[in-house]
Every structure is written in C-alpha cells, then in structure tokens.
C-alpha cells in the first residue's frame, strides 16, 4: 500500500508543472529566430556559456530563422511553458512585426512571459564623408537646399533603420527619399560609394568606416549618448527630439511559465550579464547592456515598445501583409 502511495506521489510530482527547486534538471533550449552569426545571435552566444555554468545545465541555442523572426517566435509561443524552451525576442518579433504582418499565429504580448531585457543597441545617424554637413542642423539645411534629391538607405522596410528615417523626416521637416536594401551590409556599400547619402545604422556596423574616413557620424539616435562615441550628441541634443529608435533584445518564455522559474532564469541571466568578461566583450562590440532588468519591468518595456512600433509602422504608411 505504502509503495502504491509512494508511486502515486511520484506520479503526481512528475505531472505537476516543473518544480522551481529542481529546475533545471535537463538542458534548456533558447530559440533564436534569426540566422547564426547575426547581431542578435552573437549577443546571446556570449551569454550562454556563463549561463550554462550558473544554471548547472547546458543552454542550447536553436537558430530558427525566417519570415523576419516570426517562424521561431511562433515556435516558442506554442512550446510547453516549463522553462525548458525560451526564445530571443526583439523589436521586430515582439513589436513591429505585429503591425507589419497580418495573421501572425502568436500574440507578442499575451503569448509570452518576458524574462529579461538583455540589451538595447542605439543607432547612429551617419552620412557619406562627402556630404557637406558636420552637424545635424547642417544636414537638415543641406537636404532642404536639395529638395527631393537626397537618399537614405535602410536595412529593410519596417526595420528601425527605415522607421528612424520616417520619424526624422517628420521631426526635421525634410524629404529624404527611402532606398530599401535586404540588410545592412549592401546598404553600407552604397552609402560608402555615395549613391545614398544618409543612413541610420548601428555603431558597430558604421564605426570602422568612420575611422577610415569614408563615413561620418552626426548624432546618436535614442535616449542617451552611445558609450562607444560619448562625444557625439543625441538627436534631441542636436535640436531634433522625438526620434527614439533602437534595436533591443529580450528573453521570453511561453505564457504560463511558473513565476519561480521566471525569477530563477532572470537571476541567472542577470548574473551572467554582470560577469566582467561577458560585459567587456559585449560592450566592445557596441551592445548597451540593460542593468538589472526584472520580469515585471521587462513586461512593461515590451508593452510600451509594442505600442511605439505599431504607431511608427502606421506613420510610415506600410500596409500589413
């Protein structure tokens, strides 16, 4: 009888949602909905070795790229909320995509429990070195003196690099013409060649061209100056407030994940991010790490970002597909 009772108890325990005490007792998978070797992927790859050590279980990265991150994100939304399947999310998967694509099979807000916001990566306003403008007001004057003639490149319709330009045109009253590319790299070729004059792109992607004298950074786009260019004013400081676009990365669990597991994961991620070696390397690469992000603050952040990007896509007049 006792044996049966014990057996029953064991069964019950197994049937219960994973216990925070014993969690994790097997490897954890983090779905990255982007290609291996990309900016989002690299960020996480720097964190996971430390994270595995802290949690005492292997943390595996599973790249499920495609459809602007929607394929991998949908996979996470449908996974069991047991803490063993997590996903990396960004301003595209959990904010802009919902306005850009019709009929997504996941809800970026209700379908997920945010674990932590890892990093925000600010953008820079860069111009080709031959553009006769050393400050933002000079650029605005130059664009206004050449109406309809100045191009700006983007890494794709609906991306922060595109929508920053839409916002900038509105704030500064300019008419920069949008030239979309498939990704940042080919856009930078045309920017270096001078076929397009202006671009909003990340500091890591543009700084080496600035050092080589081919491009010039005029301002940081976002709330604060970039640590990699502390002398560069923000657009607000330069007199054009209201353009607050940046890339961000966050970890999400499927909705319904037990709170103790979310908390444990959050602590582990924060500890990994605080590691001196991890911090140094990521900051060298231009990521701006978020200090002490909690599940609650992450949730509020994602909700605000969702609202902001939906509004921006509407402003850019992109029809959802």
């Amino acid at each position: 009888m006792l044996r049966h009772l014990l057996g029953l108890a064991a069964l019950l325990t197994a049937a219960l949602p994973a216990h925070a005490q014993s969690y994790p007792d097997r490897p954890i998978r983090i779905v990255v909905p982007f290609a291996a070797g990309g900016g989002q992927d690299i960020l996480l790859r720097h964190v996971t070795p430390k994270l595995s050590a802290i949690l005492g279980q292997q943390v595996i990265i599973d790249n499920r790229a495609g459809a602007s991150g929607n394929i991998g994100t949908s996979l996470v939304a449908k996974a069991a909320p047991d803490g063993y399947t997590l996903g990396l999310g960004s301003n595209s998967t959990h904010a802009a995509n919902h306005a850009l694509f019709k009929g997504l099979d996941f809800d970026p807000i209700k379908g997920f429990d945010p674990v932590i916001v890892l990093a925000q990566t600010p953008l820079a306003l860069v111009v080709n070195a031959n553009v006769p403008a050393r400050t933002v007001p000079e650029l605005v004057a130059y664009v206004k003196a050449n109406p309809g003639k100045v191009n700006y490149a983007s890494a794709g319709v609906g991306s922060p690099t595109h929508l920053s330009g839409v916002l900038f045109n509105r704030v500064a009253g300019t008419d920069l013409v949008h030239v979309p590319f498939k990704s940042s790299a080919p856009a930078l070729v045309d920017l270096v060649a001078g076929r397009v004059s202006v671009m909003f792109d990340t500091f890591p992607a543009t700084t080496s061209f600035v050092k080589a004298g081919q491009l010039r950074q005029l301002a940081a786009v976002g709330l604060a100056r970039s640590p990699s260019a502390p002398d560069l004013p923000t657009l607000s400081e330069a007199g054009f407030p209201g353009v607050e676009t940046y890339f961000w990365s966050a970890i999400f669990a499927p909705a319904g994940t037990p709170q103790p597991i979310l908390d444990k994961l959050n602590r582990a991620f924060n500890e990994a991010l605080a590691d001196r070696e991890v911090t140094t390397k990521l900051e060298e690469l231009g990521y701006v790490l978020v200090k002490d992000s909690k599940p609650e603050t992450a949730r509020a952040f994602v909700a605000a970002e969702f609202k902001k990007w939906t509004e921006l896509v509407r402003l850019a007049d992109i029809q959802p597909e």
Partner: protein
Amino acid sequence: MSDVGTGLLLGLSVALTAQNLFYCFAGAVFGTLVGVLPGVGPVVTIALLLPVTFTLEPTSALIMLSGIFYGAQYGGSTTSILLNMPGETSSVITCLDGHAMARQGRAGAALGISAIGSFFAGTVATLVVALFAPALTRLAIAIGPADYFSLMTLGLVGAVVLAQGSLLKAIAMVALGLLLGLVGTDVNSSVARFDFGVPELTDGLNFAVVAMGLFGIGEILTSLERNVGAGHIAAYGRVLPSLAELRQSAMAVLRGTGIGTVLGVLPGGGPSLGAFASYTLEKRLSREPSRFGRGAIEGVAAPESANNAAAQTSFIPLLTLGIPSNAVMALMIGAMMIHGITPGPQVITARPDLFWGVIASMWVGNLMLLLLNLPLIGLWVRVLRIPYRLLYPIILLFSCVGIYSLSNSTVDVALAAGFGVLGYVLTKLAFEPAPLLLGFVLGPMMEENLRRAMIMSRGDPSVFVTEPVSAGLLAAAAILLLLTILPTVRRGREVAFQE
C-alpha cells in the same frame, strides 16, 4: 609591391605554424565532406562550428572556416559529376558535362580536371587577392544598381545561349525561373508574394532546395525507369585526365579563372554566377558547341575553375570592407565579431597577421585540397559500382537531412520533393533545368537592382544607358542576343543540335 611581399611573408609565417596548418587541414577536410554530402552546405557547417571556434585564436578560427568554404567548392563537384547531384549551388553547372562524362566512363578525368582547375584557379585568385585587394575593393564599391541590372540582363541572355535544344523551350525555362524567383518578400514594400500563407515561403525558395530537387531527385526518378539492379556505370576508365584532355581544358581553365576572379569580387555575384558565366562563354567560343552537355571536358574545367576563383576573391569585400558577399561570408563576419574583431576597412592595418594569415592559408589550403582530392578520385569512382537500389536510398536520405538542415524546416524537404517531380516531368518533356536555375538566381537580384536604380534616378530609365558600365554590359547583351537569334546563326544552331 614590397608591402605585399612583406605581407605575404607575414601571412605565411602565420599560416605555416603547426596550429594553423592543422586548422587549415581540418577546414579543408570538413569542407570536402560537406561538399560531397548533397544539401549539407558550408553555411550550415560553419553555423554549427561557430561555437567551437569560440575557444580558438581568431586567426585560426577564420582559417578553418575559410577552409570549409573553399573545401566545399572542391567537394561539391564530386557528387555533381558522379551522381548528377549538385553538392553545392556553385557546382550545379558541373552536372551538365561532368555527369555526361561519368556516364561515358570518364568520371576520373572529370574529377581530375575539376581538382586541377580548382587548384590553378585558387592559386591565381589568391595572388590576385594579395596584390589587388584594395583596387578590387574600389570595383566592388563602384558597381551600382544600374550596372548590376545590366549584368543580370547579360546573364539571362547567357542562360538562353546555355540551352541545348529548342530556343523557345530555353526561354520558357528562364521565364519559369524568373517567376519562381518572385516568391518571397518584396524588398521595396515588404509585401509577401506567392507565399500562400506559408511563413516559410516569405523568405523565398532556397536555391539549394530547387537545385537539389530539379537535378538530384529528378535524376533519381528518371533513373528508376532504367535497370535498378545494376551498377551506375560499367566501366570508368582512367583516374586522371589524359594529356589531350589537359590540353583541351587549358584555355577553359584560364578563362574560367579570369571570370570567376572578377565576379567573385562583386557582392551578390560569387561562385555560382562565375560558374554559369564561364560555362556560357566556353560554349559560345567553342568551335563545336554541340559537344557541350554531352561530356565536353571544357564544360567541367571552366565552371570548376571559375567557382573556386570566385570563392577566393569573394573574401575581398569581407576582408577590406567588412561586407559579406554571400551567406557564408556573413557567418565569417559573425565569427570575427564573436572574437571581438570589428570587420571593416581597418582590419588590414589593425590586424595584419589576421588579414595576411588568412590569405596565405588560402593557398596552403588549396594545395592540401589538391593532394587530398587526387587520391580520393579512385575511391569516389568506385561509388559508381554500388547498385542503384542501395545507392539511391542512401543519397535520398542524405539529401533529406541536408535540406532539412538548411533552415531546420520540413517545408524545405517537401518543396525539394515537389521540385524532384517537376525535374522528372521536365526531363521527360526535354526541357532543361539549367536555364530555369539561372533565371531563378538572377531574377530576384535583377528586380531588386532595377527598382533600386529607378528609385535613385527618380523614375528615369535613361540611367541604364548613361552609366558607362551599365551601357557596355547592355550592349554586350544585345550583341549576344543578336548572334543567338539571327536566322543564319539559328539555322546553324539547329543543325548543330539535331538529336
């Protein structure tokens, strides 16, 4: 010049350390293996090995990853020749004459010339990278959207020339390829076209999926009609090309090297385009174009030289600008960033050991590949002795695994099966898949650049003739088209192609 000399010496001193020799060799072997396995490409392999490279010196890591990339160019030709199964996108064209040679029992000669041509092209292209990297970087930057569009136009005209039989059928196949290229998200509006609500289709069809289906699986289906019990080919002749065959291939290797070297520099061009272009040129220049598609050794030598030359020079935009010219190079940038090196114009001055080390290792790696591949030929041709009933299930299994691994997607596997059926039907109706693939590759690039050029010119189409490079390419396309459709030429063509 002395800069280049000291640079190369520095590079050799880096590449020839025991540790880097080992990683170069490991990369070359890995690359050959993934090149041989149908569907499993360097992109997947490098993605899988990225975490492993974490612990390596950045230079060693890049040397190994580069080895995988150009090793795959060597290995990819093996299955193309033996089984009509392109292991790599850039070796699709090798199927045409390579497999025909294998059927005639000349598999050894085909494999031999592809290894020798690749080594020669790799050596020349490595020298070009060392000597002219900065100058070629300016070329990569100077080519604008209008020029790209005209280059693609020339390519499409070439696709028609490429075809064997009916001109009309060739044009139909190019058009079908262009249509298949439309599937996916439009760059200018982010509208998903022809996706039928399948999210996997919003990124377009994968080239490897289409090529594997049309060529490889289609070939298997066609072969099922033949005697499945027997081996593939009874005799397989000598293991190396004869002196006559070498002489026949010499010019093709030279021209293929030249074309591949130039096209490899262009972002978006790369090995596949180089292979297609050089094959077209050889066929155009040949006194007996009818031999092509029926086991002409130049039809193997030229594209194999071109794809390897292009594989080397596609490192130029990566090393000098930090700009990837294809998916593999994008991963290399990822690998550099993981090691805290920001790719860009400063790499040459900031990390000369890395820049020159990688370049020197390319030549070392090519030599290793030649020494590795020539003895393997004897082994590979023995694969042809395996009876169909054993060989084909194995190949299909590997293909499915390879295709699935492209983006961990079952949709891709189903699509490849569908394209296999299409390939079978096309073969039965005497439509050739090669022009379709060229249309499929060029179409999306052509559209993207056409529309970008039009945005930049504010809707003025005259840019295509006022830009000198673009105008020259369009003129070349027009001349080629005239030569192909002029009645007299066509009459000659039809006589030549009579079955």
